[in-house]
């Protein structure tokens, strides 16, 4: 590869009607299949993008996560739900190596990530957002996405200081692509605003755009709808499906908004006190007495 080129040369385009998106787009359409197996059927014959085997972590005697076994298909939208303090965010921190697991194995695309750092895990294909938003607040919206594109650019420090042609080429392509990621989330108008000045919902969207810019194969969203109004949530829901359909990646999301989870997730894992109490399709979760009892209570059962 020549210096200054981007690893993925296709600009993303937009996903509005008429202009087909071009970031890493596969031509074959996703066929909706009724789920019969553990993974969505279209993913069933391929290596799951993520497999957790007996994953667990202990904080000073507290088993925050224990015996966590999950597999996620390559184009699956999966949900991770459970009451506050159940250990959902902790699982994201384990998957991204912010925490080192006390025991168990994480396989990303069949490869063990035990020895990887957080940054290496991202480069291997996991991108995430944070429950309490972690943007680069004092930098522009555009720069936030450009930071996400960091590893997609490959010019060295010498090229940067001497401003060699490779620098200009990579910067130009990266800016174009960053703007396209922003336009996917209707943030292109705010490209030059400081990230910290965006309203809450827009900050959440920017975090997703930044995560997507790292070109992941698994996207982890930690309560993406928190603090959003119903119309924003509806749009987010559409966007998550679009992300999966456009980029053909897997999404694992933590969410308290049950309508969102039940509507778009193909597989759901319910967590309580660090342990899985149930996993299955939305229908199976809805009708599972253990979930209704232990997690949702009587009021929650009505909601479903």
């Amino acid at each position, binding site marked *: 590869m020549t210096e200054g080129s981007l690893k993925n040369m296709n600009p993303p385009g937009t996903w509005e009607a008429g202009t087909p998106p071009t970031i890493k787009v596969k031509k074959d359409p996703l066929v909706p299949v009724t789920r019969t197996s553990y993974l969505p059927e279209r993913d069933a014959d391929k290596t799951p993008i993520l497999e957790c085997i007996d994953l667990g972590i202990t904080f000073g005697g507290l088993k925050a996560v224990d015996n966590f076994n999950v597999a996620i298909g390559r184009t699956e939208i999966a949900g991770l739900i459970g009451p506050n303090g159940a250990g959902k965010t902790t699982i994201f921190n384990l998957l*991204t190596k*912010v925490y080192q697991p006390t025991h168990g194995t994480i396989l990303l695309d069949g490869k063990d990530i035990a020895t990887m*750092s*957080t*940054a*290496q895990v*991202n*480069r291997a294909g996991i*991108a*995430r957002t*944070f429950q309490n938003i*972690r*943007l*680069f*607040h*004092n*930098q522009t919206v555009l*720069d936030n996405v*450009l*930071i*996400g*594109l*960091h*590893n997609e*650019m490959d*010019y060295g*420090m010498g090229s*940067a*200081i*001497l*401003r060699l042609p490779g*620098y200009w080429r*990579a*910067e130009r392509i*990266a800016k174009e692509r960053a703007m396209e990621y922003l336009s996917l989330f209707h943030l292109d108008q705010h490209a030059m605003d400081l990230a910290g000045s965006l309203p809450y919902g827009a900050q959440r969207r920017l975090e997703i755009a*930044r*995560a997507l*810019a*790292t070109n992941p194969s698994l996207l982890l969203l930690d309560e993406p709808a928190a603090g959003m109004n119903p119309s924003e949530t509806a749009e987010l829901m559409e966007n998550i499906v679009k992300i999966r359909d456009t980029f053909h990646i897997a999404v694992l999301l933590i969410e308290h908004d049950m309508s969102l989870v039940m509507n778009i997730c193909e597989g759901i894992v319910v967590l309580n006190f660090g342990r899985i109490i149930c996993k299955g399709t939305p229908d199976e979760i809805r009708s599972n007495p253990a979930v209704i009892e232990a997690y949702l209570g009587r009021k929650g059962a009505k909601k479903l």
Partner: protein
Amino acid sequence: MKKLSKGARTDLLTYAGVIIAFIIVSVLKANGGLNRSQTGLLVPICCYIVMAVSLNLTVGILGDLSLGHAGFMSVGAFSGIITAMSLANVIPSAPVRLMLAMIVGAFFAAVIGFLIGIPVLRLTGDYLAIVTLAFGEIIKELITCLLVGVDSEGLHIIFNVSGSKTANDLNLLEGGKVIIKGAQGATGTKTIASFTAGFILIMITLVIVQNLIRSRQGRAIMAVRDNRIAAESVGINVTKYKMMAFVTSAALAGAAGALFGLNYSNLAATKFDFNTSILVLVFVVLGGLGNIWGSIIATVVLYILPEALRGFASYRMLIYAIVLIVVMLTTNNPVLKTWREELRSKFGKNKNKEAKDA
């Protein structure tokens, strides 16, 4: 015409400002508009500007506190002096020797910066401040123990830990020359530093620092500063970029040190003490963390003021301390902050209007 981003415009204005200042001062100097003591300030000011801009890379851009920047200056100064003095007979051209001295000074400072960085930059927290503080003091003591001379056989170096040796123990041949005499420091140095060299060094420093900031590397460095966990989550190797900023900063300080060292015929290691590190830190904080042209202005003003007000010279550190505290209080004051932001947004709108009209 291509529209320049705000950052690129600031960079260009900074270069332009430095070039214009250089031309004005050069003209003044040529026409006898500066007296001897004023002329004597020119090279040190250039050195301190480079010191401040490079420290800003560590403190403002990387966001790690360093309290030993003068230590890197010291390493650069003495390695630069040794280089220039020992090559005196080999390379007759003073500018070439000066350039080599600055390169060698930058190199040694970079190596030491790297060695310090390996254990420290992996850690989170203010360990860098503590370690650089210690480094600054240790390097001062080490150079005080150093005896260096040169003769036709080459360099003679004695590390005089016991304190019992003198320059005579270097056993220099006839025609040999003592370069560094322990506690006395460098003596009899040929002063080959020049204002033009200082100007060129400032320009090189600006190119390195400003271009670094506006690259993927610079964005990564600032991402680490603003939110380390988020930076890691988008695949940024934190240690690598901390190291990049810190070593670059050290190297530039080394080059500035070499220029500084070759501006004085006598120079002791005690010149590069904790006070000097703090002095440079004051320039950076007053100029604004991460603000490159601010560092330049603050350095010039704060360096000239006490010289101009000779009577106050002895209160220099006191004045700096007070100013530093006042600045820290006011810049973090939420009321003043919102007031400043309001002003800025008003100012910004006006500017946009002008641009449209034009």
